[in-house]
């Protein structure tokens, strides 16, 4: 039954996080961008809200609530509305936890999930994107080859969150097959032989988020660390979840731009009038509003299909291409509304522009 009605609980989470985003996330965002660092105290503070832990089953120490991509999409929009980089860092544990929860064997869940049920934030990490041009998640260059009962991984990963401190990485690689069926994931401990972790990368956007490049040179992984065991992972679900999550984050970012430029345009005058009173500016803002809404419903549709364990590939694809396109346009126009001020780092819009363009080409930064 088609319905746009959030549950009371979803509304409560949305309202709470919206306030939190305004009060606690927006302010430190610039400083984290400039310093390329996010204080652990901040991450612990978000952690207290239990965003990752609540959906981990009680037997592993979690809150035991139902796994809910819709709830997570709503939460992610609000956090990213505060700041998308801080949202990525705060939710990085979900990259590991939700992926293991969705795809792992009972044994893997038992081994790894309790670490994400503690009092403090712990780094989680997914290694998906690769540095070569023409990156395609369905045609990875990092290869997983069987070696006896085990596997060897060879390839290069980039933009791997918290490469500087994650205890293990979920490395996505390709087996002998094509497309979604070719996707494999392995839990690789940071001290694995043949794994080289670079210094923190220097990125244009998401600067506060520490990322590394991983070089895998015939890294041997035991069969026990092949995510999902003998049956492997559900490649569609992994990629769809990542893309819809990116979409949700971009809805939040785009809404931030819109809500920032509206009061600015009302206050800023040119030719004896607020620039908001000029159609050239007013229509740009109206289009931002139209697109923020359009983006959100595409994300919700795909998230609800994930929630119901339906094949969300088509919807996720739509949500992903649409949100990436429009978020960049919205941030771009946000700068234009501010004019010269939009180019200055005193305002957050240039940061959102860098972040939007970065997320538009990244995958595996978020999980739902």
């Amino acid at each position, binding site marked *: 039954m088609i319905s746009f009605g959030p549950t009371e609980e979803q509304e409560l989470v949305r309202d709470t996080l919206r306030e939190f985003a305004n009060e606690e996330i927006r302010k430190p965002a610039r400083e984290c961008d400039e310093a390329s660092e996010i204080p652990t105290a901040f991450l612990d503070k978000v952690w207290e809200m239990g965003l990752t832990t609540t959906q981990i089953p009680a037997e592993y120490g979690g809150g035991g609530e139902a796994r809910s991509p819709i709830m997570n999409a709503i939460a992610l929009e609000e956090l990213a509305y505060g700041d998308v980089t801080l949202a990525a860092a705060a939710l990085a544990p979900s990259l590991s936890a939700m992926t293991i929860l969705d795809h792992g064997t009972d044994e893997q869940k038992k081994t790894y999930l309790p670490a994400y049920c503690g009092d403090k934030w712990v780094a989680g990490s997914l290694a998906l994107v690769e540095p070569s041009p023409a990156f395609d998640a369905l045609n990875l260059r990092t290869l997983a080859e069987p070696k006896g009962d085990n596997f060897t991984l060879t390839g290069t990963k980039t933009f791997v969150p918290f490469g500087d401190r994650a205890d293990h990485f979920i490395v996505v690689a390709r087996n002998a097959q094509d497309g979604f069926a070719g996707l494999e994931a392995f839990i690789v401990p940071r001290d694995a032989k043949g794994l080289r972790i670079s210094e923190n990368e220097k990125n244009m956007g998401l600067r506060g988020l520490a990322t590394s490049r991983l070089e895998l040179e015939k890294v041997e992984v035991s069969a026990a660390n092949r995510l999902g065991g003998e049956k492997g992972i559900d490649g569609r679900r992994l990629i769809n979840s990542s893309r819809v999550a990116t979409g949700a984050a971009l809805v939040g970012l785009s809404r931030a731009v819109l809500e920032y430029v509206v009061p600015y345009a009302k206050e800023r005058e040119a030719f004896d009038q607020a620039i908001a009173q000029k159609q050239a500016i007013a229509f740009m803002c109206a289009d931002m509003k139209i697109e923020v809404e359009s983006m959100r419903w595409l994300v919700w549709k795909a998230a*609800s299909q994930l929630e119901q364990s339906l094949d969300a590939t088509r919807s996720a694809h739509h949500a992903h291409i649409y949100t990436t396109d429009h978020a960049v346009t919205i941030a771009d126009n946000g700068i234009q509304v501010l004019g010269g001020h939009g180019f200055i780092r005193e305002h957050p819009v240039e940061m959102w522009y860098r972040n939007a363009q970065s997320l538009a080409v990244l995958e595996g930064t978020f999980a739902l």
Partner: protein
Amino acid sequence: MIDFELTKKDQEILDEIRRQALVAREHARYYDENEHEFPPDKLPEADDFPHAHGLFAGREEGKDTSVGIMSMLLAAGETWGDYSVRMRRGSGGLGNAALRAAGTPEQQAKWGDMTLAMAITEPGCGSDPSKVQMTAVLDGDEWVLNGEKIFVTTGCRAGGVIVWATIDKSAGRAGIKSFLVEKETPGFIVAHKEKKLGIRADDTAAYVFQDCRIPRENLLGLNEEIPKASSGGFRGVMKTFNMTRPGVAAIGLGISQAALDFTRDQLAEAGIEIEYGASLQGQSAVVDKFCRLEALQEASMLTVMRAAWLAGEGKINNDEASICKAKGGSAVREITQGCIDILGPMGVSREHLLEKWFRDVRITDIYEGTGQIQRMIIARSLFDYTRAELN
């Protein structure tokens, strides 16, 4: 609960509407090429088909998709067949929506069953209806109407019309009132049926009123006073659009969906399958373009359903009605243009319907408020501006 899946019953209804729409599609080209003819109120094939209202029986309120959202999907399902040719022509026009919104109970009882067109636009004013030149002068117990109206949808077929005229030009918007004029009233002349780019079979009339006398009680809502502050009454009339705007967007999106489906079929025949999931680098430009058009279609239809959902929940949907109209109006153009681009010469040949759909959808961004008017409404709400502050 947030959910976007159709129930079994929803799907049955939509499948049936689509089956009927395909029959209408068979007549589409004929009435496009024979603009002077009116498609019949009822196609001969319609006798054997169940009526949409009958299909709704057996729906479960709260379990199946709401009537508001379904009505949008039905509108899109019908125009997926053809815009103008329908299995059966419904009895309501835009004027009926105005009558329901602003008529007294007596007026609603008297004219509710008559198909009513709505005549606002004049040769000299369209998007700014406050500049209406047509006059209504009270003479004893009768209003005397003089003026011209154009672009009146359903204007030939309707039994009557709700017409906007001013009772006091110096009062501006506040002086504009709605009057109900029945066909055959002396002095009410249906001048001609317009010749158009698209939706050719649809009946779009031009009217002339020459000393046309109507009873005093034909003033919609019966309020003869001119309000001091020009908002209340006018806004009341504009409220009519809060469900019709999503409807208009849905109507356009039914056509663009037809264009997408045709394009997908033609590509498949040429051995090009649409597959989802690959990155930009992993697929052809044609497939990528198609997916982007499809995403635009989905996004637009979702904004329509969202506006309808709000209305069904009894929530205010002014902004959302304009959002989906603005979105749909530009999306249907981009989608049909894009489909032609993908198919090339085949897309502009009159052997296929795609070129017709491209022409038919163009009206979506114009009638019931242009895309620019919608953006004005959205922006005023965003900035909390009055009409005077942003125009």
